[in-house]
């Protein structure tokens, strides 16, 4: 690829350059006109004429200079998805003229910046040229003028040298992924490294997922056009066929019409100021979908169109290729999509998916059907009694706790993070219906924890962190009660032990029976004696180890369980086969305190040989410091770790391959 093609031909830029030049000319002439009356006072007219001539000369020179030198970033993008509004859509700029406050809070949200054109303003990491490591291969990112380019050798099934401009970015909250145009129509492919924003580090793209470490090739070209665009843009149309990729989107990013549906009819009808006044007093307008006023199920489905594990109904496949999703907010999601649950293994829509990926159900759901992926909250919520409520006045939807818009100036960082409504960080979300628990005494009696403590927060027991995504654990939106029985049946950590990391399943079963009358399931000796989290780390599969590693760094769990015993367990995970497990173990170990020096030089992407010495160093440092005495649940003898028991359990680690496809 000739890099000179990155710069648009001069002829194409002339239009914008001429406008700039004419503006300068107009400014100069305007200035002279404004000063003319003054000039006339002090001259007999010759000075005035001279000034006009000088101004015209300066203006002409300015036009000439600007024409040949003015840089501009405007350029055609024949190989990038095209932003083109369909007839029924108007775009967020039009919405702003009547809804400036809503536009403002949306504008500050991460929904807007989910997909952006790559530019110096939108690319978060600051650099001019970077040489990054991708499992031993070099990936180069460099700015050429105002264009970002990548250069690397592609491996796997798509070998070849890549040197292409980066057109788009995904994400601005947790990580930023870079997409280059392949040159085949408007097809995009991911650069095999991404930038983790919180830690300010570059990571191989596949290393951020819970997938076997051998899986190193990034998603294949066209994945964005076919899959990512469906939820990361507004009104996406894949327009993909054999030999053709001509993807169009209404807007990059998730904008107004993604949640409110096409706004053309609404904007047209409301050109009439009398109608606007009438509709404002009525409080509703049937020309636009508003999840805030819809019946709960419709409202939740408007979000669920993206925030669920779903697949398009087979009958819409053909029209989808050209026109995108047939679902519009306010409609019935189930009529256009199959929102997948555990009973759908034989659904015709899933035949192709299961043929391609037999692990689909295991990677998306726990064995009882509870969703295991983060970002699919609707799939979890709809399994909850609070959503399945027969009484729609009591039925929850996403807007019961979340607010997509804030008043002017109230769109702060905390809101941007999870878009929770005012007060919803406490128990208000639940006490809206469960009002009896708003009283302190009732709350203490129900939770058996001190009001104000983390154990008295409804969501810590009923929405525990059992969903995986973005290199961390997230809250399940399946609102359930803690259950040892469920953990025995599914392997999913129970809420009590995700906080009480130093306690066993037996301890939890006793507490649930005593406090809430939950029947105690049969437990073996190990389940009764050994802390559940210790078993997750030493004997669990990669998904379970990742959740455990994250939980050890959770401040609420550290407060409830103490941290002085944790290091050997987190240290053990530093050479885990799965990079995400190692990453979380190192992060949690860093939060325990006192291990920063030991971790210096640790690279969670290193091979097992490089990571192994850190396992020993952490244990040695911990051994020298430990004064906690004997604690059988976490395998502590009076003078330190019960190495034999630790080793016996670790030998039983579940090494079955885990794919969690986010």
């Amino acid at each position: 690829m000739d890099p000179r093609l990155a710069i648009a031909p001069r002829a194409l830029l002339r239009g914008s350059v001429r406008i700039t030049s004419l503006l300068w000319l107009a400014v100069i002439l305007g200035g002279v006109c404004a000063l003319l009356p003054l000039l006339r006072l002090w001259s007999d007219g010759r000075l005035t004429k001279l000034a006009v001539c000088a101004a015209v000369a300066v203006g002409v020179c300015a036009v000439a200079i600007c024409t040949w030198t003015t840089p501009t970033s405007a350029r055609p993008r024949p190989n990038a998805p095209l932003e083109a509004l369909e007839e029924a859509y108007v775009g967020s700029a039009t919405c702003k003229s009547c809804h400036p406050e809503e536009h403002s809070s949306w504008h500050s949200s991460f929904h807007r910046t989910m997909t952006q054109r790559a530019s110096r303003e939108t690319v978060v990491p600051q650099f001019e040229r970077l040489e990054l490591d991708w499992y031993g291969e070099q990936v180069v990112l460099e700015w050429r003028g105002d264009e970002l380019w990548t250069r690397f050798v592609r491996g796997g099934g798509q070998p070849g040298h890549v040197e292409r401009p980066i057109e788009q970015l995904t994400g601005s909250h947790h990580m930023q992924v870079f997409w280059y145009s392949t040159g085949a129509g408007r097809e995009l492919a991911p650069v095999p490294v991404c930038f983790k924003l919180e830690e300010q580090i570059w990571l191989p793209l596949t290393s951020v997922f819970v997938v076997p470490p051998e899986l190193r090739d990034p998603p294949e070209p066209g994945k964005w056009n076919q899959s990512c665009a469906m939820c990361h843009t507004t009104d996406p149309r894949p327009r993909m066929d054999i030999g053709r990729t001509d993807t169009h989107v209404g807007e990059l990013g998730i904008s107004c019409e993604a949640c409110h549906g096409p706004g053309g009819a609404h904007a047209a009808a409301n050109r009439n100021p009398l109608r606007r006044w009438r509709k404002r007093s009525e409080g509703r307008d049937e020309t636009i979908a508003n999840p805030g006023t819809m019946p709960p199920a419709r409202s939740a489905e408007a979000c669920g169109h993206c925030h669920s594990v779903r697949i398009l109904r087979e009958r819409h496949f053909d029209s989808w290729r050209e026109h995108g999703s047939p679902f519009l907010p306010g409609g019935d999601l189930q009529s256009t999509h199959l929102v997948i649950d555990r009973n759908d293994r034989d659904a015709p829509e899933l035949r192709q998916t299961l043929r391609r990926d037999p692990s689909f159900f295991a990677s998306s759901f726990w064995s009882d059907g509870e969703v295991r992926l983060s970002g699919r909250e609707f799939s979890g919520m709809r399994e909850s009694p609070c959503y399945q409520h027969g009484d729609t006045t009591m039925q929850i939807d996403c807007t019961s706790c979340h607010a997509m818009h804030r008043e002017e100036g109230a769109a702060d960082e905390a809101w941007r993070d999870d878009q929770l409504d005012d007060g919803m960080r406490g128990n208000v979300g639940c006490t809206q219906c469960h009002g009896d628990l708003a009283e302190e005494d009732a709350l203490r009696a129900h939770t058996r924890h001190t009001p104000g403590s983390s154990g008295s927060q409804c969501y810590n027991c009923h929405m525990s962190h059992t969903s995986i995504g973005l290199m961390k654990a997230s809250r399940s939106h399946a609102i359930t009660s803690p259950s040892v029985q469920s953990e025995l049946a599914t392997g999913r950590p129970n809420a009590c032990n995700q906080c009480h990391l130093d306690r066993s399943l037996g301890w939890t079963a006793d507490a649930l029976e005593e406090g809430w009358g939950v029947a105690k399931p049969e437990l073996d000796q190990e389940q009764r004696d050994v802390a559940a989290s210790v078993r997750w780390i030493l004997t669990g599969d990669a998904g379970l180890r990742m959740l455990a590693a994250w939980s050890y760094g959770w401040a609420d769990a550290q407060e409830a369980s103490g941290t002085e015993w944790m290091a050997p367990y987190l240290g053990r995970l530093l050479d885990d086969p799965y990079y995400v497990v190692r990453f979380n173990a190192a992060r949690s170990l860093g939060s325990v305190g006192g291990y920063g020096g030991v971790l210096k030089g640790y690279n969670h992407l290193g091979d097992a040989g490089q990571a192994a010495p850190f396992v020993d160093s952490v244990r040695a440092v911990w051994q020298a410091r430990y004064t906690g005495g004997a604690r059988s649940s976490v395998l502590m003898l009076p003078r330190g770790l019960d190495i034999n028991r630790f080793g016996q359990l670790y030998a039983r680690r579940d090494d079955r391959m885990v794919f969690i496809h986010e």
Partner: protein
Amino acid sequence: MTSKPDFSALSARHLRFGWGSLLVFVVLGGVLEAMHGFKVDWYLSFGSETQRLMWRLAHAHGTLLSLVHVAFAFTATRCSTEPRVASACFIGASVALPGGFLLGAFGGGGGDPGVGIALVPMGLLLMLVGVAACLRSLRP
């Protein structure tokens, strides 16, 4: 006995200028209001909120300066010396201030106006000088 100086020609010029520009800027205001009220596509989809703000500011400044000219026309008849500098400055300001905002609506980006906005500080300066010169001419 000294006769009162006659500045009626200057006064008439500013009355014509003032009422004339008032007509222009009130029409501009009416057009902008109508386009906003009826949500005219061209107006709403044209560029950014900053551009629309620039046009509103051009309308507001043009209208107010028109009234300044009318007031100045009556003030001129009370001056002891001919307020030629003030007259020139007010006319210049009436070109530079609304003209700067009008031009500033074009060629900007990222919430900033275009280069035309450079005329606005010049207009402000002319306005300040004009006001000071007017005061000076009113000295007995």
